[in-house]
């Protein structure tokens, strides 16, 4: 049994909208083991991004407990990196400085070595001195992944990182992130609305329902199934996940009537 790196217990999160409490996340329970690749699928607005931000320590929560590396999450920490849908590279910093943005308390040489290593890891050699505006969407996300990993976090959170990329680049980046995860052995939690992507990458796929965001089911996917996108088993899981949403949308229709 691998080490439990993240524990979420009975997590509730509410937002105040027009003086009214709106439940965003309700009764979330999840345990993630070291080295896992977890994907979370759900409708937009189901609170999956908020969940990632809570894990990162960017957003606080009302009830429940989130424990990251044995410590209750109250603020961001170097043990947890994050990649967003928009690459969020700072336009005024060269790629190398963007990648090194999260490095603290290191002398110049070690810092450069770390940056160099991670630029190589994501395959951006030769673009160290470029500005983000000179890079394509896929390359920008590579740089953002390098920034997320540079401080050697044990967890990397990915919030729809490939959502804005074209289909071919997306598939390429999916392969890349698997390779990177294999090399770095970082625990990765990725939010996506692309069901194919969720099955391809996640060894566990968490299906979330919306308003309030709840975990509807957790599917375990064998890597042999995931590799074969055209396979019957892949389609089986895809249908299974789609059924969840279909069912849910029917409920939603009933609700609105």
């Amino acid at each position: 049994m691998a080490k439990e790196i993240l524990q979420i217990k009975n997590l509730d999160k509410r937002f105040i909208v027009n003086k009214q409490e709106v439940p965003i996340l309700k009764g979330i329970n999840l345990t993630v083991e070291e080295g896992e690749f977890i994907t979370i699928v759900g409708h937009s607005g189901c609170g999956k991004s908020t969940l990632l931000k809570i894990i990162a320590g960017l957003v606080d929560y009302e009830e429940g407990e989130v424990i990251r590396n044995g410590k209750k999450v109250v603020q961001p920490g170097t043990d947890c990196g994050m990649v967003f849908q928009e690459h969020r590279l700072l336009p005024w910093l060269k790629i190398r400085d963007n990648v090194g943005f999260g490095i603290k308390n290191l002398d110049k040489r070690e810092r450069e070595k770390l940056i160099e290593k991670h630029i190589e890891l994501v395959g951006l050699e030769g673009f160290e001195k470029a500005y983000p505006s000179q890079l394509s969407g896929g390359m920008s996300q590579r740089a953002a992944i390098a920034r997320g990993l540079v401080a050697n976090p044990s967890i990397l959170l990915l919030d729809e990182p490939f959502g804005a990329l074209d289909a071919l680049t997306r598939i390429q980046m999916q392969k890349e992130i698997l390779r990177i995860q294999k090399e770095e052995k970082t625990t990765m939690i990725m939010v996506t609305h692309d069901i194919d992507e969720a099955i391809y990458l996640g060894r566990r796929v968490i299906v979330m329902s919306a308003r309030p965001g709840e975990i509807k089911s957790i599917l375990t996917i064998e890597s042999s199934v995931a590799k074969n996108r055209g396979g019957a088993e892949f389609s089986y899981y895809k249908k299974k996940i789609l059924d969840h949403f279909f069912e849910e949308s029917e409920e939603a229709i009933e609700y609105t009537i």
Partner: protein
Amino acid sequence: MRKLKDIGIQLIIPIIIVLAWHFTTTYTDTPSSILPSISKVKKAFGGMVQTGQLQEDLRVSFTRVTKGYAYSILFGGILGILMGMFPVVKKLFGLITTVIRQIPMIAWIPLVILWCGIGEESKIVIIVIAAFFPIMINTLNGVESTPTGYIEVARLYKLGKIKTFAKVYLPHALPQMLVGLKLGLGVSWMAVVASELIAATAGIGYRMSDARSLMRSDIVIVCMLVIGLVGIIMDKGLSLLFKALTPWERRSGGKANG
């Protein structure tokens, strides 16, 4: 080739103006106190340079602009940054700055002369009144429009307030701040001339006012041309400086793929 054509088109109107000027003074009996000939203006210019009067006037006006501009950057910059970063500061100063901004710079001159006399202080105060607002407002807009996504990245890496300002807010605001600085320098130059025209004992604006009372329209025109020229040089100079300061701004062309 195309560029040459562009320059040619740009020069058509100026050439027409100069020709019209030349023909008016040569073939009509317009008194030279109303419109001096081009050669007379050239002579006046030569004389002013030779006696050092032009240089001295420019030096006086420049010193005023430099001081007033520096204060404007200091006050406008700081207030703009604080208003951009802290909503409460924006609320505190928002209304009053919007109201004061509506009053044209020229309209301040009588009161400023009553308060500060016709010496150096009044010129500098008028420059500050003129240049403060474009600098403040552009700084405010630049800082305020910093995407929350970038601020979140700074929070993720636990940057303190000062570091977040230096690494995120400031560079994001810089291009817009530079627009404010450019506008500010332009109006500083206008403000010094305006205030010198109304009450002064030296400076390029004073020289014009003095020449007008002596019916020396040639000197007036020399001063006007010099004012315009200095304005353009300062504007272009700042543009070059700003380009060097924000290298990331002009590199969006030629994206790499992959």
